[in-house]
């Protein structure tokens, strides 16, 4: 009895393994950031339909993407935060190029009983709220930029991401840029030591807590807020205008930064607090990570072809999924960067 049962179980297992394994054949494999996963998977689908090249992408997180490309276990990586010089030095396959693909923004969400319209925020106010120095919604510094709103004497409750994420990186990158005290204290990173507040897991965790807790303030990706119809605040940019996040205002931010970039930039640049009248200040690029020297001729060519397709046809479909496309000036520069990839003959 037992032997027979065991034997049939073993056979069943073999059957499952046999059914799963052959499906693994792919032309290119990549791994990394979760934030751009929806647009990447659309691109890979569209590209497979057009060229027949199949790309398998695992959205395991930026940290995993950096580790896997460094270990050469994937053909390309993807990250929401640029690699440090130290990390670049450890990559086994030589110099790594950062290829910007799309941009995303992070927005301020809040739950203020009695607030009628869209609230306005400035960098120093947000930083001091997240540092725990502004603790009431009717603080004079908040009411000064929100004339016409009768804000309540409600305690502010900060909600932040508990999981390491590119969203937190962009958010803390911005706070570091606008507040010297934040720069000294928590600093920037995918996880930081939060002075105050509760942690929620994922955009949904933060948004869920903000919506439930009166007086709460938090931050989520623009895409998440748009797709879930959550209203969010306008933020004062470097030119002094209050700007609402959208794919256009984020592209404007990149365009503002691009003007000041050197010709040979490696694109590991931050676009927070960007110059430009209509630039939204809390935004970032997301990158694909590829080796400059492609040892495998066939794969290298497929990868370069895909990157060039992405920079033209791919960009056109990004905004439909609420990702901000690269400004045309940047696309031109990135094309030159892609051309510098050396594919083995």
């Amino acid at each position, binding site marked *: 009895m037992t*032997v027979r049962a065991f034997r049939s179980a073993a056979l069943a297992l073999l059957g499952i393994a046999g059914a799963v394994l052959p499906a693994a054949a792919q032309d290119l494999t990549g791994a990394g950031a*979760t934030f751009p996963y929806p647009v990447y998977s659309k691109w890979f689908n569209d590209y497979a339909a057009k060229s027949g090249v199949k790309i398998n992408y695992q959205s*395991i*997180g*930026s*940290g*995993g993407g*950096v*580790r896997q490309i460094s270990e050469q276990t994937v053909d390309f990586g993807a990250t929401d935060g640029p690699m440090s010089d130290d*990390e670049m030095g450890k990559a086994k396959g030589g110099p790594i190029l950062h290829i910007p693909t799309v941009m995303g923004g992070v927005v301020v969400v809040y739950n203020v009983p009695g607030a009628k319209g869209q609230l306005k925020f400035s960098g120093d106010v947000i930083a001091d709220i997240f540092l725990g120095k502004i603790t009431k919604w009717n603080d004079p510094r908040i009411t000064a930029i929100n004339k016409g709103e009768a804000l309540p004497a409600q*305690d502010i*409750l900060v909600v932040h991401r*508990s*999981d*390491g*994420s*590119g969203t937190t990186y962009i958010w*803390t990158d911005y706070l570091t840029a606008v507040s010297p005290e934040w720069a000294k204290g*928590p*600093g*920037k*990173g*995918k*996880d*930081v*030591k*939060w002075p105050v*507040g*509760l*942690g*929620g*897991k994922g955009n949904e*965790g933060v948004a*869920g*807590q903000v919506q*439930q*807790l009166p007086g709460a303030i938090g931050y989520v990706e623009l895409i998440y807020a748009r797709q879930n119809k959550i209203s969010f605040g306008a933020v004062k940019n470097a030119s002094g205008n209050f700007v609402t996040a959208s794919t256009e205002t984020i592209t404007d931010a990149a365009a503002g930064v691009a003007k000041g970039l050197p010709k040979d930039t490696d694109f590991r640049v931050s676009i927070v607090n960007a110059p430009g009248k209509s630039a939204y200040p809390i935004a970032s690029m997301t990158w694909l990570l590829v080796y400059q020297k492609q040892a495998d001729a066939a794969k290298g060519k497929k990868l370069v072809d895909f990157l060039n397709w992405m920079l033209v046809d791919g960009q056109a479909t990004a905004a439909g999924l609420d990702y901000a496309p690269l400004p045309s000036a940047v696309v031109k520069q990135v094309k030159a960067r892609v051309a510098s990839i050396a594919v083995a003959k």
Partner: protein
Amino acid sequence: MTPSNAAAPLPDSGQGTPNTAIDGQDLQGGGWSDRAYDALLTAFALCVPLLLVLLIVALTMAAWPALKQFGFGFLTSSDWDPAAEHFGAAPAIYGTIVSSVIALVIATPLAIGVAIFVAEFAPRWLRQPIGFLIDLLAAIPSVVYGLWGIFVLVPALRETVMPFLRDTLHLGATPFFSGPAYGPSMLAAGVVLAIMILPYISSVSREVLLAVPRSQREAALALGATRWEAIVGAVLPFARSGIIGGIILGLGRALGETMAVTMVIGNRHEIAASLFAPGYTIASLIANEFAEASGDMHLSALMAVGFVLFVITLLVNFVARWLVWQTSGGTRKVG
């Protein structure tokens, strides 16, 4: 299990003995197929301890850089700062233990009560459906518990339970139920865990209670005990070691539970006396930070908290074995 044995009349067991002897001889003197089967099973059996050893080695090696750099301070410091690469896991260790203890305190009496009802009082037709429904609790994915926690439990705690505990019962005077009631908190984590471990404790307890020989009850009743006295005095002591086993099984599950806890505990690196305050657990910490951890020290620190969780679980199991061993010694005296 045991009830059929105990209830069986003597001649039956007399017949059983020679049968098993023949079976044993058969196995020993069998052909090559039996020996091959024997070797295969031995290999399988050895795989498990081997896996455990490999796990310990891998975990220790990965955790070593962090343990070496932060030393004992890793266990006592509350400073978890990935940006500055300072790591102290005290809040997570504290939260893991406290949330599990809250869960046990809530779940154990409930689960044992349910088990006693099902095994002793429930009419036969009710036994099956109740047992089935409770076992079903164990089949719900933990992320579903987490979502339920966010949308139902946490608002209920914030608006009803916490103000009731703090103001109506005046427990706010103690440090454990004071402070603002946000909702996501150690208490919320404990309550979700309690619901999640309840089916484990109650199923094991129920089976153990059902396995208590009828003679045990009959003897107590014959001595003039009421039904309640028979349960407390004769049935529960007999089942004690099994029930403790069930509680430990629940505790083990509570210590390692990740998703549901992460969603309701508030994820804050702080040790607070108040159960209304947010906290952290080791499993949540790893789940939250592992995917995006890129620094070597950060990864190593996460491995190190994993190592600490492993040690805590081992300790709990040792204590459990010891308790079961102690109480089963007691059972024999009673039986």
